[in-house]
């Protein structure tokens, strides 16, 4: 069954992997790394949820609990969510989608992966040495003056990994600008490319600010230079401005790629052109731009001026509009489609449902008078998990199932795949919906113990988390199983459009035998799939 030219997986030596400059292999390297980081962060979450089964928090000590949520946050945000879709799926499919043989700077691409893992290991080293209890937000002056533990080591880990992000963003921007195949005009790009283009802009512009901020913490902590600690003449709230100037756009780094994946899935599995292509494409850019101007909504009760609060509130309401546009266009795409319920589509449906709820609860938090009550409670936790897990993790899983045949040349087992998607959806809602109620009741976040009247909701949430855990474990097992026992995948198992499906599964080392010439708009699905008339970009 092997294709003649050898495919990109044919070489097996360790050095062929560790020194590869093939974007596809680097994508797989990223996949392996983030699975490890995800597993560590998930174990931390599981321990926290078990601890919260009882009001007095019986499993771990308060300091351990604080280290657990710090570990969970740092690992999930910087070492799983941010690289998940961009660095794994983006690396793998961007060059193929635009008809290129690789990214613009293949060696930089490999360097990004090494930086990412040096950062990850540095952060893990801080954990092994005794951990950090500042929370992933590193608020000053706690992080600079009062916290014990290996704050600087942890920060350096994030700092180094940040350079990996910047280089990845840069690489993608240049690849998308300069390496498109003949005929692949801007408005023939799949929407996944548009969303990753927007993501890359944020990665390149926002991550340096994070680097500066983290460095400032290290400088104050190591040498007592007063930047944030008022006792040294600094301003603790300044830190929050600098941190959220990166970290709010980072939220969009964590959701825009998911939106891109969902645009691919919805069109493929309903066999329809996307409704309102330009609106979906430009809403990504609008989110990226406006997303830079809403950071102060994390600081409504921080002692920021109330007028600043109002400006950030109105901008936060505005940034909701482009997200709403996307939801409406995806729904409209289904109209008169031919919809199948393959696993990736189930994840896409799950994404739309959970992202809608996540987005709407964002309105509660943008409403400044209501945020005063909900800020720093479990309501916020539930809200951003609906976006981060309900949005990003579900779309990542959807995309991974969708491209799995392309990546590995094997099919995953469909029935159990659908089961896992449904289990994940149920488990997720049971975990996080009770947290909305808890937050409204007033349960503050980052509490190791809590008043007994909140226990019912915590128990429900922990029960949900164990179901969610099964939803994560199943794909891990059947993906591994499929590598050896899965059916051989054809070049285009989903009858999808898009250049990545024009080449073999798994693709040859250079993606295409001949660079394709693009003559059609994206998503040129035939109205009736039964006709099996798949439009093909013509080959030169």
């Amino acid at each position, binding site marked *: 069954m092997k294709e003649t030219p050898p495919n990109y997986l044919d070489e097996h030596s360790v050095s062929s992997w560790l020194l590869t400059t093939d974007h596809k292999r680097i994508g797989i390297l990223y996949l392996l790394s983030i699975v490890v980081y995800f597993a560590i962060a998930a174990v931390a979450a599981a321990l926290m949820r078990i601890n919260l089964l009882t009001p007095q928090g019986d499993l771990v000590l308060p300091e351990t609990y604080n280290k657990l949520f710090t570990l969970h946050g740092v690992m999930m945000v910087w070492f799983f969510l941010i690289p998940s879709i961009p660095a794994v799926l983006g690396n793998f499919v961007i060059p193929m989608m635009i008809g290129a043989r690789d990214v613009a700077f293949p060696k930089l691409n490999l360097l990004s992966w090494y930086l990412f893992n040096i950062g990850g290991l540095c952060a893990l080293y801080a954990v092994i040495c005794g951990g950090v209890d500042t929370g992933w937000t590193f608020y000053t002056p706690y992080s600079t003056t009062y916290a014990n533990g290996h704050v600087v080591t942890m920060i350096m880990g994030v700092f180094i990994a940040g350079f990996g992000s910047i280089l990845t963003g840069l690489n993608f921007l240049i690849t998308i600008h300069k390496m498109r195949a003949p005929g692949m005009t801007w408005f023939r790009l799949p929407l996944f490319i548009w969303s990753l283009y927007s993501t890359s802009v944020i990665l390149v512009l926002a991550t340096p600010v994070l680097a500066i901020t983290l460095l400032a913490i290290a400088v104050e902590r190591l040498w007592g230079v007063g930047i944030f600690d008022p006792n040294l003449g600094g301003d603790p709230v300044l830190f929050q401005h600098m941190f959220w100037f990166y970290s709010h756009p980072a939220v969009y780094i964590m959701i825009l790629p998911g939106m891109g994946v969902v645009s691919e899935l919805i069109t493929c599995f309903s066999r329809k052109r996307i409704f309102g292509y330009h609106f979906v494409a430009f809403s990504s850019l609008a989110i990226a731009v406006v997303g830079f101007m809403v950071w102060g909504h994390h600081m409504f009760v921080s002692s920021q001026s*109330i007028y600043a609060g109002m400006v950030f509130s109105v901008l936060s309401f505005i940034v909701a*509009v482009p997200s709403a546009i996307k939801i409406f266009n995806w729904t409209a795409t289904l109209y008169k489609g031919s919809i199948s319920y393959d696993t990736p589509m189930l994840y896409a449906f799950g994404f739309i449902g959970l992202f809608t*709820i996540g987005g709407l609860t964002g309105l509660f938090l943008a409403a400044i008078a209501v945020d005063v009550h909900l800020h720093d409670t479990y309501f916020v936790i539930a809200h951003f998990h609906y976006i981060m897990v309900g949005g990003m993790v579900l779309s990542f899983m959807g995309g991974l199932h969708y491209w799995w045949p392309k990546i590995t040349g094997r099919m995953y087992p469909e029935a159990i795949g659908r089961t896992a998607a449904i289990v994940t959806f149920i488990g997720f809602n049971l975990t996080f919906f009770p947290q909305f109620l808890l937050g409204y009741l007033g349960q503050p976040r980052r509490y190791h113990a809590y008043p007994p009247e909140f226990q019912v909701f915590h128990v429900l949430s922990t029960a949900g988390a164990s179901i969610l855990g099964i939803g994560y474990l199943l794909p891990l097992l059947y993906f591994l199983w499929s590598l050896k026992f899965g059916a051989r995948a054809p070049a285009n198992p989903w009858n999808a459009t898009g250049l990545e499906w024009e080449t073999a599964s798994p693709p040859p080392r250079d993606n295409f035998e001949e660079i394709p010439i693009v003559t059609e708009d994206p998503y040129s699905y035939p109205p009736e799939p039964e006709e099996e008339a798949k439009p093909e970009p013509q080959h030169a």
Partner: protein
Amino acid sequence: MNFHLLPPEASAVARESDWMFWSLTALSLLICGLVFLPLCWFAIKYRRGRKVDRKLTAEVAMWKIEVTWTVIPFVIAMGLFTWSADAFFRMETPPPGAIEINVVGKQWMWKLQHAEGAREINELHIPRGVPVKLTMISQDVIHDFFVPAFRMKQDVVPGRYTTECFTPIKTGRYHLFCAQYCGTTHAAMIGWVYVMEPQDYRRWLQQGSPEPLAARGEALFHTLGCSGCHGASSKIHAPPIEGVYGHLVPLETKEFVMADDKYIRDSIVLPASQIVAGYQNLMPSFKGRISEEDLMALTAYIKSIADQTPEGYPK
């Protein structure tokens, strides 16, 4: 085990906050319906293999649809913003005639002092129906004074005063939480707010006949040696403290600054930062030598003599 689905509604703001919360909930349910019902309907009606008409009718004006579902959410969003910003503005404006209570947050306890002199730890007693204004500061890291029953919270920041206002409307005992992560036993930095009938509150205030805050400040003014320079009989050329609070003070830099809590505090811990016009910087900094509670007591004293005129000044 006691179990609630809704938190108690114990302040004037809580009613407005809840009204907005439930309106947003209703709106969210409506929008969910508008998205999920068509989604499910399409997903069932147009499922693969089902014989239905899939012919798209002649070109619909797509831009009209797009503009519609861009403009309507935008208008709704702006309406919500106006409503909540207006409510927030009123929340943040201290009501006239509020009782003033000082709050100092430290790892991991709340210390509160009433103007009448009563001091409490992790408990706050207040009368029903009377506006309360908290002036808060942290001694170490950032904390947050959160009373869910009042739907109110505000960060308590080191090095600067923040304020939080509310009017309790229902007697009872309510949770007080620290809502900003502040270190190891953050979860134990909790307490209770007791809302009492006004006459009970007055009785409670008199317990142990405490020294009023301003009087304690005056005593500190002497024991810390402030009176040596700022006192009436002093030979040293130092600015007087009578009649200062709430007035504009001219500075050496030819600026004016309002003498509020922040100004008083800065003048004690960072005296060199704002030199009063016509004086030299002779004052040693009291940074690290005076607690936040004592600073607040001194401020209360200086505030209590805001109507007086310094000796030797024309009336």
